[in-house]
Structures are given as structure tokens and as C-alpha cells.
């Protein structure tokens, strides 16, 4: 009741975050991903590429590449165009230029677990084995759908189409220069190799960790969370291997294995019984 009233008052005042209600312009560029899939890193990378003189930090990232889930539509409409925006939305047909980040859901699950502790959504006494089935069942980030729904909704509609590029977080780690070149070409922007390398350098995990230490009490996304749990955590791939039990791994793979395989993520369990998404209707 109070929540509804609060929402109504905020709606009348025009201060609710835009989210799905965002006004979209055709020249907007969106950095899209499921939560905990490298979106903030992508904002640093792309921001440092587009604004090399400013240098992205947690103090200015929300004015350079704001999150549509943090600011009201009115404020975002006032930005100079073309806008570059951060979004966690599942497929939105109005987005015409999209850099989509996807990450191994086993690593996403571990990352969401620690992030949920940081946000005090779950107690830090909850075991991962209890968290995983709930995560796979869609209990966290309800507004964005499950990891699989999110990925599928973009892949099925935009894969191979103009104005869309899908970047794997893991390849961003191993071949950052190639991936940056892919992003630039999808956005039809031209940069020198030096500019690409500079952006990668300015967005390293080490630098982001340092910036977080100084700025996380001020950043909108982290200021009301536990400051003893970092936002920029391992910034690695394959961390799930040492964190997740085999039961937890199989819980994820049984549910999302087909989509994982389609994206090139090797399964740890035997998935001979999973159905193929490519079967005819």
C-alpha cells in the first residue's frame, strides 16, 4: 500500500527510474546484459574509448553512460545525443544499436550470489547450494527474466542483424583488442589500435578495483550496499569450478545446458538428454 502510494507520487513527480518506460531514440546505443555479466566493465571500456580525455570512473560513469534503471526518463531525455546507455532489459524491440554482453551462467550465478550478499538481499550464511536452485528458478532480478530468457530473447531476435553485436565476457578477457574492434565496427565507429589499447588499459580490473575503493561510497549502485564486499570481485572466468558443488553445476546445466552449448560454453555434466533448441516447431 505504502509502496504503491510512493510509486504513484513519484510517477506524478516524474522521478521514477525510467527502466522499461524509457523513451528510446533511434540513434541510442545500448550496452545490454544480464546482471553480473560484465556490463560495468563494458561501460568503462566503451566509455574510455569514446571519452579518452575524461577517463571513466565510478564517479562519472553515471553521467557518461547512465543506467536506465537509476535515472528518470526526463533526465535521460535531456542528455546530448547520440546517448550511450546501460540496460539490463530483456529484448526490447525499440533498441536499434546494441552491444550485448553474455557470460557463462555458472560464473554469473556465483557473482549474483556475492552481489546479493552485498545488497543484503540474502544473509551471508546462506549456502551456495541453497542459493543456486532459487537463482535458476528466476527468484532474483525478476524484472529481467532468467539468465536463459534474457540471452534467448536477444539472440533469437537480433543475432546476425545489423546494429547488434554479442560479446562473450570470456573472450573480452582473453582477446580484448579483437572484441573492442568488433564493438567499434558494430557501432560503425573508427578507432586506431592505439585508442583501442588505451581504453582496455584504462578499464583493467586492477584500476577498477582501485577506483572502487575510493569511490564506492558515492556511486549510486553501491553506496547503500555493504562496503566490506567488493563490487568488482574476481573479474575472471571459470571461478565457478572451485565455488560450485557438482549438484549446483548440474542444476544450472540441466536447466540452461542447451543455450549454454549454443553459446560455446562446455558443459561439465552429461547432457545427452537435453533437447535441442533447433528442433522444428
Amino acid at each position, binding site marked *: 500500500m505504502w509502496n504503491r502510494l510512493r510509486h504513484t507520487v513519484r510517477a506524478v513527480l516524474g522521478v521514477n527510474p525510467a527502466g522499461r518506460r524509457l523513451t528510446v531514440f533511434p540513434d541510442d546505443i545500448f550496452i545490454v546484459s544480464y546482471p553480473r555479466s560484465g556490463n560495468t566493465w563494458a561501460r568503462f571500456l566503451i566509455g574510455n574509448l569514446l571519452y579518452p580525455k575524461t577517463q571513466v570512473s565510478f564517479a562519472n560513469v553515471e553521467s557518461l553512460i547512465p543506467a536506465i534503471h537509476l535515472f528518470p526518463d526526463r533526465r535521460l531525455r535531456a542528455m546530448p545525443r547520440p546517448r550511450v546507455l546501460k540496460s539490463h532489459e*530483456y529484448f*526490447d*524491440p525499440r533498441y536499434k544499436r546494441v552491444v550485448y554482453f553474455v557470460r557463462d551462467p555458472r560464473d554469473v550465478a556465483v557473482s549474483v550470489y556475492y552481489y546479493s550478499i552485498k545488497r543484503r538481499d540474502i544473509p551471508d550464511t546462506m549456502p551456495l547450494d541453497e542459493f543456486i536452485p532459487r537463482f535458476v528458478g528466476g527468484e532474483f532480478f525478476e524484472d529481467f527474466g532468467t539468465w536463459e530468457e534474457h540471452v534467448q530473447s536477444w*539472440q*533469437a*531476435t537480433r543475432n546476425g542483424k545489423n546494429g547488434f553485436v554479442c560479446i562473450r565476457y570470456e573472450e573480452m578477457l582473453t582477446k580484448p583488442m579483437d572484441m573492442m574492434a568488433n564493438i567499434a565496427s558494430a557501432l560503425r565507429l573508427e578507432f586506431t589500435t592505439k585508442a583501442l589499447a588505451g581504453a582496455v588499459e584504462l578499464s583493467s580490473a586492477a584500476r577498477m578495483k582501485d577506483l572502487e575503493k575510493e569511490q564506492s561510497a558515492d556511486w549510486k549502485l553501491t553506496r547503500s550496499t555493504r562496503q566490506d564486499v567488493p563490487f568488482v570481485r574476481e573479474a575472471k572466468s571459470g571461478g565457478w569450478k572451485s565455488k560450485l558443488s557438482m549438484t549446483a553445476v548440474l542444476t544450472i546445466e540441466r536447466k540452461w545446458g542447451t543455450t549454454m552449448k549454443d553459446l560455446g560454453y562446455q558443459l561439465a555434466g552429461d547432457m545427452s538428454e537435453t533437447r535441442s533448441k533447433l528442433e522444428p*516447431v
Partner: protein
Amino acid sequence: MDFALDRIPAGRNVTVCPGDVFIVSYPKSGNTWTRFLIGNLIYQNEPVTFANVETLLPSIYVHSDRKLRRLPRVLKSHDCFDPRYRTVVYIVRDPRDVVVSAYHYAIKLRVLPRGWGVEQFVPALLDGSFESGLLVNPRFGSWHDNVASWLAMRHNRKFLLLRYEDMLEDPKRELAKVASFLDLSASPESLIRAVQLSSADRMRELEKKQAADWALTKNTHLDMAFVRKATSGNWQVELPPQTVACIERAWGSLMQTLGYELVSTPEEVSVTR
């Protein structure tokens, strides 16, 4: 002001409750017919008409969210994939017939630019440069966006795919599928009754009497029918070959997945490129 007076249709902001059933399709793909069929199966004593369809099987684009919360929760939607919809009856129709139907509907709605023939209308529909409220709202996406986004989800929720063409071929068989999908009791007699009460002829008769009152038609050209031909394959006489090629080039692979045979020759496809 409209917000305060609760006049804004819910649309994407609809509150979704567990147990809600959504009848979803791209526009002009048989959604209204499906609502009649399902409604006439659910409501054995009250035949569905254009006068009561918005209270029996309401559209999320007609009522406010608050009003919708007091109405039965079998809801009509044209939105692209929405993860909150847990039970979905999705209707798909040959996009070549969809664009023909959309073209006539655009005239009825008075939104077709003056002097536009179908050969101007279709490419504008394809590249998204033609937009007009309920006919092609940007949130519906293109036919391809809408269909592909839902089709990808058919394994991770309660999802029933209906083809408009299969419904035309044997409406009773397809309605029986819906009944078993939604756990509705359906005797052979009740299925026959529902199909008869939802026939194109009966819907045309009802439209003649009620079109001036129905939310969807009241401000449109009343001398043009909402329930038009209710057939399939009409594109073969209404669309010039280059327009067909244009559609098949853009959406051909999804059309084939759905069993819609392509007719354009490779030459026609490349000529229009």
C-alpha cells in the same frame, strides 16, 4: 491528469498475477477470433460479443491496470516477449497475409499516408518507419521480432503455439488443444458451440451492430470491416511479386521454421535488394 484519473491503459505496465493467461500475437494475426473461441468455451451461458469481449477477455491496451485487476484474467496482448507472462497462447499467421490485413486496417484506422499503395506500405512496415499506435506500436516490434522473441521461450513456460492457418482448417481441433492446455472442460458439444458462436459470419453480424461501441473500432471508418476476409493465402492476389520478395528476404528463415513456404525466386530477391 490522465494518470490521476486512472485513464491510462495498462499496456506494458500491467500488473501480472500468478495464474494469468495471456492470448498473445502480433496484430492482425487472429487474436480477436481466438478470444471469441476461448471465451465461448469458458462462458457457456454468455456468448462473446464485441460488446462484452473487453470485460470477459480484456485487452491490456483498453483498460487501466486498476480496472484490469477487477476483471477476469484471460488477457489479450500484442507485446513482445515479457518474462512475467507465465501462461501464453501465442497465435502466429503467415506474415504475407498479416501485412495485407494490416494495410486494410491502416486505411480503416485513417493512418495510412495519402496515396500509399501496399507496395509503399509494406517496406515501411518492415523497416519500422511506419508507426501508428495500436496497429504497429514500437513495443510490439516487427512481425519477426514479436514471433521470434516468443518462439524462443516456448520451452521455458506454459506455452501453446497456434497457427492461424491450422485454426481455419479445423477450428474445433485447435480449440480442443487450447482446452487441454488451459485445463478447461470441453465436451464435443461445447467445442462445436464455441466454434459456431465464433464463426466469421457471426462475428461480421455482431460487428455490424456493435462496431460503433467497441473500443477498437469506434473511432475508425465504420464502412470498412474489422472482420474482413478471415481466410488465408489472400496475399497471392493482393501483393505484387516484389513486395512478396521483400517480405521473404527479411523474414524468410523464420517463415520456413513455421512452415510457411517461400515463393520468391532468387532473382526476385536480389532484384529488390
